[in-house]
């Protein structure tokens, strides 16, 4: 197991190097003078020259890249154009809300998605199956920013039902549960829909397997057959989907944070793009990519635990 984890970590190194090359290249691809961009639009020629010197923009590209990577490793991500503060200090406090939002949304989508998918598979062809799949299709087709706005409309602003106002939750911020419920639902819905569809088809495939018949022939209760024998096998492909889905989730977090005015990394990115604060955008992209890679390592390890057929060593 240990060697498996180490090997898996080593495998991500080329991907991480690629990611840094892309984010490094990103700054060079922006039309115009990188020094001008990094120093900000209102910078004086002296400031620009200073920036050029500080960033080593006169050095050859490989040297620049090595400096960039060294910076990442030592936590030096440059300074913000807007306020001149270190980028790492700008990003660090924004990480927590984003990670929490992503974590709870994943949790919600897995819980609802797997449950709904199993129910649909067990009741294949029945009304509950059709209803669940219809809901899933809607969940898949809804822009999450719209869903967020609708939830705000009906459960934060609220309306009166027989003297009760439905504005139970808050429409902005992050921290209390009243603030967290709506964003988590907003971000978790699409994932729940995808996981429900995946779980259903995976369950249907597994339930026809020979070993399910063996379990039934052993006298195992149908409920135990479904949850102990079938589900554990059916979850194997679902786990992979959860990992890949996490990428879409991080992207969705940008929109969700905007809708609910959450001071997370996503909102910081949007604000920074609008303010053309590129050092922050560059590092934000980098952090998101690292997060995604990290989560997929965790998923792969989980997958190794679930799927005994994989030889971990």
């Amino acid at each position, binding site marked *: 197991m240990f060697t498996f984890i180490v090997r898996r970590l080593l495998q991500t190194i080329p991907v991480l190097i690629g990611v840094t090359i892309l984010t490094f290249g990103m700054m060079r691809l922006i039309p115009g003078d990188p020094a001008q961009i990094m120093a900000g639009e209102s910078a004086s020629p002296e400031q620009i020259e200073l920036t050029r010197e500080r960033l080593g923009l006169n050095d050859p590209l490989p040297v620049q890249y090595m400096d960039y990577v060294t910076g990442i490793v030592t936590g030096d991500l440059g300074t913000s154009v807007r306020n001149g503060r270190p980028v790492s200090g700008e990003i660090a406090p924004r990480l927590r809300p984003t990670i929490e939002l992503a974590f709870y949304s994943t949790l919600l989508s897995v819980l609802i998605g797997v449950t709904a998918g199993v129910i649909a598979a067990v009741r294949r062809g029945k009304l509950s199956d059709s209803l669940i799949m219809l809901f899933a299709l809607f969940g898949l*087709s809804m822009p999450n920013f719209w869903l967020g706005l609708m939830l705000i409309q009906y459960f934060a*602003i609220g309306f009166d039902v027989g003297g009760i106002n439905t504005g139970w939750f808050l429409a902005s911020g992050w921290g209390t549960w009243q603030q967290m419920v709506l964003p988590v639902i907003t971000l978790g819905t699409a994932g729940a829909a995808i996981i429900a569809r995946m779980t259903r088809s995976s369950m249907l495939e597994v339930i026809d397997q020979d070993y399910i018949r063996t379990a039934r022939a052993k006298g195992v209760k149908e409920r135990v057959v479904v949850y102990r024998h079938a589900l554990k096998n059916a979850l194997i492909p679902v786990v992979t989907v959860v990992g890949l889905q996490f990428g879409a989730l991080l*992207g969705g977090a940008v929109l969700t944070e905007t809708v609910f005015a959450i001071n997370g990394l996503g909102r910081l990115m*949007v604000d920074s793009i609008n303010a053309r604060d590129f050092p922050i955008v560059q590092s934000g992209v980098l952090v998101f990519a690292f997060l995604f890679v990290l989560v997929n390592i965790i998923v792969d390890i989980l997958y190794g635990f679930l799927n005994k057929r994989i030889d971990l060593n």
Partner: protein
Amino acid sequence: MREEINESAAQAKAAPNPRIVKIKNFWKKLTSSKSAVIGGILIILFVLIAFIGPYFTPYSPFDTDTSNRLVGPSMEHWFGTDNYGRDIFSRIIHGMSITLYVGFFSVFIGMTVGVLFGIVSGYYGGKVDTVIMRFMDILLAFPGILLALAIVAVLGSSLENVIIAVGIFSVPVFARIVRGSTLAVKKLEYIDAVKALGATDGRIIFKHILPNVASPIIVQATLSIATSILSASGLSFIGMGAQPPIPEWGAMLSDGRNYMYDATHIATIPGLAIVVVVLAFNLFGDGLRDALDPKMKN
């Protein structure tokens, strides 16, 4: 057994062109799928609206009317008016072509590049394969819309840049599918036979491999249109895409945010429009997948 084989060989001779039979079977399966039929009809309807709808709208999508701001749905304004008093129904109709344009073109870009990469990678293998697929892995490491966000940040906010950005992030999906199928087809014996007959690589790729990987590509393209529309409208929503006063639905929705208390319909209606269009493509994609390849799941 031997008799049977002879019989079926005789039948094959008498049967019509196998390609026609295949298309007929596909059509029969497709039309027997409820979701494909509903999705297909909706898509045709939407395309019609996109092309001829703008000639029949009751108002111009850009005409402001300050005396009629934030009016709810009525006989006069079916979907109400927005904060400038513009008729939302007319704006939705005009926005249809933008939505479809974004969906089709971004997928067209992603598909063309992805298929090219996938075929080259799968067909030639070796170092080319390694380099291309590692590059695809890196692209995949950027979470969906964020890659697009980064690209728009670099290229600047505009609808065209959104199309390019959304297209680029669908490249790896196509590349992976096509590479897998190409590898599978390449292993088939008849490809060796064709090679032995002296066919060029280009001919083998276009005549023998592409037709064989067509089904998964078509299914993926349909489903990608749905996600691309969602991503593009999301980018417009945060101001990275279509700029006002273009009646792009995501941007319209963004306008509506500020009037949630007074006029919910400004945000509700463009969102519903997006849901309906995306739903149609998802329905059609699901049906298409079942008809083309029942083994392909999600």
